Structure formats: structure tokens, C-alpha cells
């Protein structure tokens, strides 16, 4: 079934978009990531103009994250307080990130630098996480129960302590703020939601339980992407609501399914899969840089 999109100005297969939205929704519900990394290249491939793809995705992610958060809220696996602290950090980070981006752009070759650092960053995070979670998984297979680690590192010795009940943590507000700032900066530079970096950071730096991490990540993604949607809609006019509706119908259903799968899995299994996904994205981005593209030229909008 073909549908002509009013803003993107292309005709697309509606069923394909429903399926695509569903797939991304499942990942979103399971891992607490937005899924933009996966959706962006796929939408490009279908022929949606990049600017429209990026803006519309933000709107679709609002829907699937909201759907996922409601499912997590019912299971009490959302740490709203933590989410809000991360959000504050994220906003500061986004602001700083945009400044940094413009500064790098003025220097030239920002594209290369950003992509390279992102590939290296994802590779390290994904790799470490993969090793850690596989080890944890092997220990549980061996019959031993993994002791819940209460690591006391520098994170726990800072002032302004706050109680995060859902996460079972009593830590300083400074680390979550810093994580938020870091993710915000990366998100602004890379133009991605940052769920990818947020989830491992919450598990390993803040020491939050894996189950709570997914819901909390989704919670903070909603606010970020809602803001992004409004920015794109009012400044670039690139949000295609027809495309968004097709994607989000699949997305909200997928998120419900994903959440249910996620709950049934062990924390270690979830981390292994997440690590594999992070590595897959890293490899994909790396290959894009290394392999000669089939078409060296690309057409962009005029003006500049």
C-alpha cells in the first residue's frame, strides 16, 4: 500500500514503515534506547530526505518511549527522580554540545573528528560491557549466584547525597548530573538521542540495577525527543506527521512487546544483547567510513 508523504514529498510503502517502526519499538522497550541509530539509515534507504527522517524520528521515539515507560511504570521500574536529575544534566550538556559543535565546525573537518571519536567510544563501551556481561553470565551458568555488587568507588564519596528509592541508591547528585551532561554533549554533536551511552553509563558508573535502567532511560528520552520534535517542527518544518503516524503505530506496539521480553530476561542476558547491539552500531559506522561508497556524490538542499 503506497502513501504519499506530505512533507517528505515521496511515496512510500505503508506496511514497510509499520514493520520498521515495530522493530525499532521492540528494541526501545527492551533496552531503553530510542532506536534512531537504526531508523535513520533505513529511512534514508527508502528515500526519505535526511532532514525529514531525523526530525520525524524524534516524534516517533516520543511515542514508543511513552508506550514503553507506561509499561515500566506499572512494574515500578522507572526511577523518576534519577530521570529528572539526568535530564537536567542532559539539557546543560545539549547546550554545551551545540556550542562545541559550532566551534569545531568553524575549525573545519568536524565531521571526521566526530565520527571517528564516536566509533572509538562505542567500541570501547560495547567491548567492555560485552566482556563483563559474558563473564557474569558464565558465572550464573556455573551455578553460582552473582552477589549484588555494591561497589564503593569515588562515585559514593561526593557531597549532596540524594536517595533514589527505585534504584536502591543513596548517592551524590553530582555523578548523575555529570552523566547527563556527557550524554547531552554527545547527543548534540552526533545528532542521536544518546540512549546508547546513557544505558551503559547508568549501569556501570552509577551502579543502577539493569531493570530500572531501561525504564529510566526511556523516561528521559521522552522529554529530550519531545523538545527535539518541537525544535524541528518550528524552525525547519521537517516533521512529517504522516510518516510519524505510520512509524509510531508499529513503534508503540513494538515497545509493549519489547518491554515484556525485557522483563522475562535476566539482567546479564539483557546486558550481553545490549553490548552486542552497541558493537554492531560501532562496526556499521566504522565500515561506512572505511568502505568506498558506491556513490561518491550526494545531493543536498541549496543555499549552502
Amino acid at each position, binding site marked *: 500500500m503506497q502513501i504519499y508523504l506530505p512533507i517528505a514529498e515521496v511515496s512510500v510503502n505503508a506496511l514497510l514503515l509499520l514493520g520498521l517502526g515495530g522493530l525499532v519499538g521492540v528494541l526501545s522497550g527492551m533496552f531503553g534506547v530510542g532506536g534512531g541509530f537504526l531508523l535513520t539509515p533505513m529511512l534514508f534507504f527508502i528515500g526519505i530526505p535526511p532532514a525529514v527522517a531525523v526530525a520525524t524520528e524524534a516524534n516517533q521515539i516520543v511515542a514508543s518511549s511513552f508506550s514503553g515507560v507506561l509499561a515500566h511504570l506499572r512494574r515500578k521500574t522507572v526511577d523518576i527522580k534519577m530521570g529528572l536529575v539526568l535530564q537536567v544534566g542532559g539539557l546543560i550538556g545539549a547546550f554545551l554540545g551545540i556550542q562545541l559543535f559550532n566551534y569545531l565546525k568553524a575549525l573545519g573537518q568536524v565531521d571526521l573528528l566526530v565520527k571517528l571519536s564516536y566509533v572509538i567510544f562505542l567500541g570501547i563501551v560495547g567491548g567492555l560491557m560485552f566482556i563483563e556481561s559474558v563473564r557474569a553470565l558464565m558465572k550464573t551458568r556455573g551455578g553460582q549466584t552473582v552477589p549484588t555488587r555494591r561497589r564503593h568507588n569515588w562515585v559514593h564519596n561526593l557531597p549532596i547525597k540524594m536517595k533514589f528509592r527505585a534504584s536502591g541508591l543513596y548517592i551524590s547528585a553530582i555523578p548523575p548530573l555529570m552523566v547527563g551532561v556527557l550524554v547531552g554533549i554527545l547527543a548534540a554533536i552526533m545528532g542521536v538521542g544518546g540512549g546508547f551511552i546513557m544505558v551503559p553509563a547508568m549501569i556501570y558508573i552509577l551502579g543502577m540495577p539493569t531493570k530500572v535502567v531501561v525504564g529510566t532511560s526511556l523516561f528521559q528520552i521522552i522529554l529530550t525527543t519531545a523538545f527535539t520534535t518541537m525544535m524541528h517542527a518550528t524552525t525547519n518544518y521537517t516533521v512529517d506527521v504522516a510518516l510519524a503516524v505510520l512509524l509510531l503505530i508499529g513503534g508503540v506496539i513494538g515497545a509493549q512487546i519489547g518491554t515484556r521480553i525485557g522483563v522475562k530476561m535476566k539482567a546479564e542476558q539483557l546486558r550481553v544483547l545490549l553490548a552486542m547491539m552497541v558493537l554492531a552500531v560501532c562496526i556499521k559506522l566504522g565500515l561506512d567510513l572505511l568502505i568506498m561508497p558506491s556513490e561518491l*556524490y*550526494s545531493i543536498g538542499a541549496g543555499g549552502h
Partner: protein
Amino acid sequence: MNRLFQLLAALFTFALPIQAQAEDIVAGLSQNAVQITATFVGSEILIFGAVKRDAPAPEGDLGVVIVVEGPSHEITVRRKERRMGIWVNTDSVEVQRAPSFYAIATSGPFNEVINQDVDGAMHISIPESIRIFQSEQVDDPENFAKAVIRIREDAGLYAMNEGAVHVTDNTLFDTRVQLPANLTEGAYKARIFLARGGEIIASHTADIEVSKVGIERWLYNLAHEQALIYGLMSLAIAIAAGWGASTFFRFVLRS
């Protein structure tokens, strides 16, 4: 006053001998307005016509070239290059004029119907339809123009169909032009050229208006004129859908 008028009349008849040509075009289009609806999957326009003559047809074959052209936009073309082992965008060229759609149909091989000088003057063939800014940064702007043509041909937006115009008895002609589903709206134009011996002897232009209608029109206008409301509407749909799916699943799984 009277003398001035006579002078003007004399100038007019002298300067425009083409008006008194022996052959002229009478043409029609199956539709001169294309409406893009939500289920638009492309369209086809039948362009037909006849050659009107005051005298018997001259010797030689009649050539017909029909061009359907979309609105032109300024675009930027970027090229990737390998730097330190990595593929990145390096050079870019501003293209001043590149039609969003360009389809040519001819009655025979293009180079035989219209000679190169005429093509250069009248901007008929696909390469002639693209105009590039003079660029100091790039040594080979022609490669960028070729890339635009290649990319748009792959997308079905540029097409050259030699032999697609049927000419009957050196008088009647017709062709069908396919408009793809990824059409953008705007003022389109159909140009018809009659040629003999590589020279154009008559031409005719017809307008085709391509526009969005119905919900497509409404959404497009809302997005551009009431951006804030449109953005809030998009968010409201997202939140409602998220809540709807969550509620639905809860009831389905409980019952």
C-alpha cells in the same frame, strides 16, 4: 504617430520571420493539472498534437522532441574523498539551476533530430538543463553535474526516451510521459519542438500544474503556517498512541 506605427509594424514583420513559418504546432495534453493525493502513485500524461501547414510538407523527415520539466531549485552537490583512510565529504559545488524533474521524449536519436549548437542555445538535453555556478574550489565541476544526472536518473526523475514520440504521416504525433510517485509540487512545463535537419522550426509550450490536494495540502500548509500547532499536534498524536497501545495491551493480557 501614424508613421511610428508603420515603422513598428514594419520592424515587427521584419524581425520575426518565424511567425510566418510554414509549419506550426497544434497540441493538447491529457491533463494539465496533476493532483497529489495521499494515495498518489505517479501519473501518466498523454501529449499529442498535429503539424499545421499552409503549404505542402517540405522534403525530409519531421523530428519531434517533447520535454516535460519540473520547477528548478538550487542544490548543493557534495563529493566524498578518502582522507587518512576514511571516506569523508570534501568538495562541494553549488548548482544554480537543476530541474526537480526532466523527461525528454524524441521521435528518433536525439543527436540526429537536434544538432548540438541548437541544443546549446535552447537548453533541451538533460546536461543542458543544469547550470552550475562558476566554482574556484573545484577543478572538475562537470563531474558534479554528471553526478546530479546519474543520481536523478536512478531515482526516475530524469529520463531520456529516444524514439518514444510516435509520428504518423509526418503530421500527427503523440507520446506518454510517466510522472513518478516521488514528484514534488510546483509549476511544470511541457515543451514541444518540431525539427527539420537538426534545426528547430516551431515550438510550443504548455503548463502543467502539480499540486497537493486534500489532507496532503492541509498538513503541508499547517506545518508551514502554524508550525507550533503542528508540532504540538504531532506530539499529542505520539503521546496518545503510546498511551493507547499501553492500555490496549494491559486489557488484552488481563482478559
